[in-house]
């Protein structure tokens, strides 16, 4: 792969996503591509995979060659971040075969390739197994198998483990290593968490948001030279952990509690739970994917009815709204329990970030001056001021997370329920979130967080509830 003065500008944008890039990667190299959000890492991967679109999709300059030719779809294998949007067909075998069919591989060769690819990623499932019931980690390995079956000389992974729990991350990484060892394919991966791939890659390239390459060399050289700088820009560099805030633990009081609680959507997923949410304390709910963490969070937040037992608010919290949060009005929840959903996009209601933050305070009927003051302070605090007029949907993952947290904080709830608040975040957003939650805790807010993130639990949790 080689780029000379290559650049790309997405249709309708004035800024270049990538510009002035000069980079050569020879066959068989294994490269970790780093750079802060907006450095154009994903754009570069998509360009190499030939899926950036034609002239309608944007404008190119310079030259980008893969295997000596213009990149075309299907020649390089690309695995993306979101497990859900990469499953194409309903059955495991058909999904893996899809790429081979598109490349025109004869039928008698397709099925042996499919079986070999599924073996390589250790997805020991029958070919007619439904894809809809796979876990996130399994879906990513399925996507990897679909790519491997196409036998590409270049394997491109765009944050393939950002949405996975620890076990899923390990499975995907090990599968990739096995495949690279047998095929000798060239490998380029984009990832915030350096530690995952450090032992796999032999070269690290750092892109600059201004365009071009900032650093390029062996992992040891680049990380020792640039480690601190990369960490400051949000890359998770081993040896440069984000700072943990100190906490003052004042006296606390019970705000929400429940005994013999059973939760679920229609069928019970967890029962006989005993939960106590206290002011100024953080409760972390952990456990593997699909165990019912989100369901418990939504139930405590007064959004889902219980399937047994009751969630009871203390008198100091309900202040006249009644004991059971599920029976509170939507508006009554605002100052009592704020919820931050796992997917920020589910929560967005307005066309601009500023309007988004104003919705809660307006529903409370606060005076305009007060609303402006609160929103300005939050925008400033969460580094969102320059995005006040941007559409929330167009933001990066880290920015979306910050907006969704800000919307909950705008009404100053006494209990804050967060579902996977740090999932897929760079280290900079991570430390900002943790610092802010520590401040809120010290000021007496209760925090309930459903999380996979061990660092988060160690940094903040006063109590941990492990679901199994």
């Amino acid at each position, binding site marked *: 792969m080689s780029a000379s003065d290559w650049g790309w500008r997405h249709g309708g944008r004035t800024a270049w996503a990538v510009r002035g890039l000069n980079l050569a990667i020879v066959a068989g190299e294994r490269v970790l591509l780093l750079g802060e959000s907006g450095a154009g890492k994903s754009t570069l991967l*998509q360009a190499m995979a030939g*899926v950036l679109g034609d002239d309608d999709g944007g404008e190119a300059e310079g030259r980008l060659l893969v295997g000596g030719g213009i990149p*075309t*779809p*299907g020649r390089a*294998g*690309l695995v*993306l971040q*979101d497990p*859900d*949007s*990469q499953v*194409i*067909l*309903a*059955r495991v*075998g*058909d999904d893996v*075969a*899809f*790429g*081979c*069919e*598109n*490349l*025109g*591989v*004869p*039928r008698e060769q*397709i*099925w042996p390739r*499919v079986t070999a690819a599924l073996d390589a990623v250790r997805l020991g499932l029958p070919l007619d197994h439904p894809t*809809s019931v796979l876990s996130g980690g399994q879906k990513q390995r399925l*996507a990897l198998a*679909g*790519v491997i079956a*196409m036998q590409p000389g270049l394997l491109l992974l765009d944050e393939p483990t950002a949405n996975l729990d620890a076990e899923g991350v390990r499975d995907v990484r090990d599968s990739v290593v096995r495949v690279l060892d047998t095929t000798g394919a060239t490998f380029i991966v984009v990832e915030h968490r350096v530690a995952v791939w450090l032992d796999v890659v032999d070269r690290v390239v750092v892109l600059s948001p201004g365009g071009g390459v900032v650093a390029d060399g062996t992992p040891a050289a680049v990380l020792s030279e640039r480690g601190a700088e990369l960490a400051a820009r949000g890359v998770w560099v081993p040896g440069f952990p984000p700072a943990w805030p100190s906490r003052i633990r004042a006296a606390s009081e019970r705000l929400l509690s429940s005994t013999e609680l059973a939760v679920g959507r229609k069928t019970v997923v967890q029962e006989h739970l005993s939960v106590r949410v206290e002011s100024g304390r953080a409760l972390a709910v952990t456990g593997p994917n699909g165990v019912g963490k989100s369901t418990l969070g*939504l139930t405590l*937040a007064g*959004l*889902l009815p219980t399937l047994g037992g009751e969630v009871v608010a203390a008198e100091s919290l309900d202040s006249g709204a009644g004991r059971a949060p599920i029976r509170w*009005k*939507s*508006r009554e*929840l*605002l100052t009592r329990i704020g*919820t931050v*959903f796992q*997917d920020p*996009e*589910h*929560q*967005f*209601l307005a066309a601009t970030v500023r309007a988004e933050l104003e*919705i*809660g305070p307006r*529903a*409370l009927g606060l005076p305009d001056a007060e609303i402006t003051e609160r929103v300005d302070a939050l925008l400033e605090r969460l580094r969102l001021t320059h995005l006040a007029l941007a559409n929330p*949907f167009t933001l990066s993952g880290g920015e979306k997370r910050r907006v969704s947290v800000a*919307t909950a904080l705008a009404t100053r709830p006494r209990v804050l329920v967060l579902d996977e608040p740090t999932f897929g975040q760079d280290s900079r957003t991570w430390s900002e979130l943790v610092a802010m939650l520590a401040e809120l805790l010290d000021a007496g807010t209760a925090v309930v967080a459903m999380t996979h993130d061990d660092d988060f639990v160690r940094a903040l949790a006063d109590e941990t509830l492990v679901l199994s």
Partner: protein
Amino acid sequence: MSGPGVVYRVNPVAKLAAALLLSACLVLTVDWVSSAVALTLEIAVLPLAGLPARTFWLRTAAVWIAAPLTAVTIALYGQPSGRVYAEFLFARVSDGSIELAIATLLRVLAIGLPAVVLFVTIDPTDLADGLSQLLHLPSRFVLGALAALRLVGLFADDWRSLALARRARGVADSGRIRRLAGQAFALLVLSLRRGNKLATAMEARGFGSSAHRTWARQSRWRGRDWVMVVIGAAIGAVAVAASVSTGQWNSIVG
């Protein structure tokens, strides 16, 4: 989609064709003879399909409920003629409306039952294979639609999350219609974004490339598929013939 019965092994394209031919014959007329004849023949043939009884009753439950409801409505409000038996406000039960009601009851069953039996046993992937390989419909559209179908399952989850998120944001107290409209719009935005990502993932796997596409699964047209189409056409034809020969043919056109 698999099961023990022969109906599971018929090519989806044949099932689609049979259901379409049969329905085409039955929607042309509104008399009771054609529906009764078709329904009788279907009751004779349907058990041969091999659909498990439990599946049959579960899947056709909606038809069994819809048919009598439609018939009662037509008995009450249908075009009155002949002797009038009862009258209440706008409702008038007469010879004419009763005859029409019976004809409709039979027709809903005659069209609905075979359609349900044939469609619930169609696997979308197999249907896409058949449409592309046998009917040579453009694979780009057929596979695009097939992949989009998988997203429908995610919509239901998105919709539930959107409703909860709105309650959490403090805007779920008033204006139910406005709220649902807003929520529907949000779902549209989300689904477009999902669709976009899916399109990129498909393209990354070479979908839409210039290579001549091959098919991992071969869709075959066998003798039993002809039998399926002939059965559908024959029931329709016999029903029409019976209706015309007894002078009951009552065309919906003209």
